[in-house]
């Protein structure tokens, strides 16, 4: 008797627990706006070595608030240029825009697009993994102690699976940041990208350097 009662209560308790769990999950899903969901970033960017070349005696290093802005801009770039295209199949130009200065914006829409962003890549069907080395920063400071240029050395490798097979995107090079009002934006770059894997129709490599700006006008 006792045994029977015990057996009959166990399934009932398990069913109750399962229902409670499902109810809790559903409640959370509906109660939390999608935009407020705390997602773990796929590409986690960190700052590595910092070097400063200065005409005068100051500053001793890059100010914290400037580092934070550079870090945010690099993260924005990596996510918009690589992660989003893998997630959705298209480049998120709107998300990329805040990280680019006028010159880089111009080139990102034209001659350097193939290097700056991962356009035309099949959408990922598996987990996206992005590994980056700590970003090395090099700053140039004027005689008044103002940091006027910062270069960020980026090395990242993104891997995922698509319906056709795996994809690896390796991007390496320098992003050149200059202040734009209260923010820092990419003004130039020396970048190389290599895309490989069976998930691609054909492997691609591209290298580009943009010393400063757009390239309107043409030769004869």
């Amino acid at each position, binding site marked *: 008797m006792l045994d029977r009662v015990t057996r009959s209560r166990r399934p009932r308790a398990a069913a109750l627990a399962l229902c409670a769990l499902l109810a809790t999950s559903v409640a959370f899903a509906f109660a939390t706006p999608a935009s407020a969901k705390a997602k773990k970033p796929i590409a986690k960017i960190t700052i590595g070595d910092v070097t400063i070349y200065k005409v005068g005696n100051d500053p001793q290093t890059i100010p914290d608030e400037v580092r934070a802005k550079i870090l945010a801009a690099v993260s924005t770039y990596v996510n918009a240029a690589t992660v989003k295209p893998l997630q959705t199949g298209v480049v998120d130009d709107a998300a990329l825009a805040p990280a680019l200065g006028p010159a880089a914006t111009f080139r990102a829409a034209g001659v350097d697009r193939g290097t700056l962003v991962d356009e035309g890549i099949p959408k990922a069907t598996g987990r996206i993994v992005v590994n980056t080395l700590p970003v090395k920063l090099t700053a140039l400071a*004027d*005689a008044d102690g103002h940091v*006027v240029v910062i270069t960020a050395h980026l090395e990242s490798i993104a891997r995922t699976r698509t319906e056709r097979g795996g994809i690896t995107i390796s991007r390496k090079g*320098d*992003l050149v940041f200059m202040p734009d009002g209260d923010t820092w934006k990419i003004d130039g770059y020396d970048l190389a990208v290599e895309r490989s894997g069976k998930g691609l129709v054909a492997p691609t490599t591209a290298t580009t350097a943009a010393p400063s*700006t757009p*390239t*309107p006008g043409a030769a*004869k």
Partner: protein
Amino acid sequence: MSRPLVRLLLAIPVTGLLLAGSLAAAWLAIGSPQPAAGTTWFTVHKVGTEAHLTDAPGQPFYFLALGNDGRTDADPGLGDAIHVIGVNPATGDASIIDVPRDTEAPGGGKINAFHASGGLPSIANQLNRMMGITISYAVTTNFPGFISMVDEIGGVDIDVTEPMFDHDSGTEFAPGHYHMSGDSLLAFSRDRKSYPQEGDRQRTVNQGRAIIAALATLRAQNPGAAGTAKLTVTLARHVRTDGLDLTQMYELGRLAMAIDPARIKNVGLPTGAGAGTNLSVAPQAQDLFNDFRDDAILQNH
């Protein structure tokens, strides 16, 4: 630190490169310069009112690289090594027109004298009138600055194509490939007597070659974006500037590093006999100027 003083300290990698060669020229009158610590290697002026990097970053622009024979920073000297450089950022091309120092200026007299009397803006104005262009930037250096600069970058690799043996300039070069120190490159850039026929005209073209060689040497060191920042600061301690800030100098440096030396044309200005020892601008030079002024590049020469 005051703004003017700040500007004094600014530097240009790019210009440094280009000028590295350009400086060479001239200084025939000077003896054996001894570079001093903290010396000014070169002076940079923004002489144009339009078409500079910040306002029109992708547009072609022109700058003047000038070697002067001033013995001190206070002495502007004659502008004896005159090189007008056109840069087209859109195509990554550049062209140099080498102007012999004795060329007659539109304003009358030898063009090199305009630097002594009116500085960089004055000689740039004469070249603007001659070629129908607007020079945006001008850089100049003297013997000590030239030598120090070349030595600082570790010397310059250059090919000597003809025998150069001249006591006055100090050349002792059989044809071949050389890694030249500042002293040697200066001698190479000053030698005109090894060219009995062309003389100063060939010397001027050689100076243009020295500019390209300096750029090639720096590019071979592959400084990258971060290395260019270091180079900018190094040069900033040895430059006088007027109208340029450190950011613009860095951008110029980056731009210079982006130009493939193989895509730089180096052409001597066609000249003929002029009044006295002057050289007149040859009629065919107008075609050269037309080719130069539309996009800063010489396609047909």
